[in-house]
């Protein structure tokens, strides 16, 4: 990691995605981090634990024996009333599963970087989104990042989103395993004091460790109250839509970098577009630029916020298109397409005139996606726009026949 000063309040640095996240965690300086290493997230825990060992942060680092314990210890710390974080990938997230729901159900503002990796089995350590797509309905806010820069920026903003009194929900910050997590990138990082000022201090409303005001967390919650508590969580998600935008604006004033629910790339006058998350959006931008030079009106929509799901805003951004391809880096095994496709297609239902939609499952288990593959998707989209026919609702891109 090399850092050079050249921006006011910011530094230019060369870091991998994992280093950028560990660096952001150092600046956030949570009171407690409980984490267990798992490929490809390992560097985050390794790097952060050296910050702890070197005395660069005043963080209680809990070395746990599993991810189930990592999330449990993080939940305990957050309930006690301090800022608590963990980080994981793939099977680590799967192993946390029941406690993941306890974190959101108990309204604990935990922030967790997740480095996306395929779920076993068969065992695979490379990137796809099956791990976090499985937790779409766990009540966590989900932010997806295209690059190390976005992973860093999303992490800093996540602290504010999670702890906002109208939200109080945990946030996952995703980046693509190996592609982003291990790829070296130039990025801008903030000065430590600017991060500290931006996130402020955390004050829990009802901390567990108050002798004169005893509070019970996680009581038995049966037929007569559980439903009300779930309804409250939905309200927190509803509020998050506004809070995410407000905090993005504040962050933009600080850094000049713009964030919203999604990024539209040359989309406004496009006829056809691809919707794709994370690092593949970067590859798609290259293709969009190439095809635009040939005079083809192609665009891209890169979702950042999948939970909450701002359906109206997504539909509004896509409604003018003739054809849309949603590319999913995970399967639902519903035989009806990937998770992002299903949700976006449903979001378009209210429109009087809808673009034709098709789905591409790609990149499972880290299978490479090439610019020629993406060009092929745009070719298919023009064919769909011309004929008005979607031949295949669900396509498998890059799988051997």
């Amino acid at each position, binding site marked *: 990691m090399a850092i050079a000063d050249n921006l006011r309040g910011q530094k230019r640095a060369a870091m991998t995605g994992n280093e950028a996240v560990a660096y952001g965690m150092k600046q956030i300086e949570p009171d407690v981090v409980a984490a267990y290493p798992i490929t490809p997230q390992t560097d985050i825990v390794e790097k952060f634990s050296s910050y702890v060992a070197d005395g660069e942060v005043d963080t209680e680092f809990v070395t746990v024996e599993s991810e189930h314990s990592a999330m449990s210890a993080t939940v305990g710390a957050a309930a006690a009333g301090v800022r608590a974080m963990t980080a994981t990938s793939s099977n680590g997230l799967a192993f946390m599963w029941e406690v993941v729901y306890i974190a959101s*159900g*108990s*309204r*604990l503002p935990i922030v967790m970087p997740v480095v996306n990796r395929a779920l076993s089995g068969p065992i695979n350590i490379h990137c796809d989104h099956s791990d976090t797509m499985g937790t779409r309905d766990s009540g966590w806010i989900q932010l997806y990042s295209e690059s190390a820069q976005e992973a860093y920026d999303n992490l800093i903003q996540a602290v504010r989103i999670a702890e906002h009194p109208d939200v*109080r929900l945990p946030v996952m910050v995703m980046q693509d395993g190996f592609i982003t997590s291990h790829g070296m990138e130039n990025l801008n990082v903030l000065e430590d004091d600017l991060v500290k000022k931006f996130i402020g201090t955390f004050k829990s409303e*009802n901390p567990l460790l108050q002798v004169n*005001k*005893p*509070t*019970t*967390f*996680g*009581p038995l*919650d049966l037929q*007569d*109250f*559980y*439903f*009300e*508590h779930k*309804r*409250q969580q939905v*309200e*927190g998600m509803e509020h998050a839509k506004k809070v995410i935008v407000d905090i993005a604006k504040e962050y933009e004033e600080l850094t000049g970098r713009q964030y919203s629910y999604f990024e539209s790339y040359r989309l406004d006058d496009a006829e056809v577009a691809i919707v794709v998350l994370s690092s593949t959006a970067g590859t798609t931008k290259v293709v969009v630029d190439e095809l635009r030079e040939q005079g083809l009106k192609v665009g891209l929509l890169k979702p950042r916020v999948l939970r909450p799901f701002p359906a109206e805003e997504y539909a509004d951004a896509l409604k003018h298109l003739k054809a849309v391809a949603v590319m999913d880096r995970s399967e639902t095994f519903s035989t009806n397409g990937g998770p992002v496709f299903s949700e976006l297609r449903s979001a378009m239902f209210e429109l009087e005139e809808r673009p034709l939609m098709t789905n591409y499952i790609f990149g499972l288990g880290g299978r490479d996606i090439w610019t020629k593959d993406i060009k092929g998707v745009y070719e298919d989209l023009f064919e769909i726009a011309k004929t008005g026919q979607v031949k295949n609702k669900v396509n498998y891109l890059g799988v051997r026949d």
Partner: protein
Amino acid sequence: MSKQKPGWRDIPEGGLIINPGSAEEYKTGDWRNKRPVFDADKCIQCMLCWIYCPDNAINLDEGKVIGIDYDHCKGCGICVVECPDRAAALSLEDEHKKNEETE
């Protein structure tokens, strides 16, 4: 049931219990299937029901049994079993019967 209970806007988030010692406010009697019915005329004040009740749901007045705390009685029927045959001051009836009568 939901009539007298607070709505989702009026309760602490996440199932937190922020008022200590509030278990008494929780009406465990809401789950009851069968309810004990007390006949004061037959009661011999042996206090066996009061001793055996696992939920402290036998109401007393100056050391005498006067009835059942239906807010907290779960309807287990132990009081009915323990009430001596010679008195038979307690009997069980279906909860829904009572509900139908009041409706």
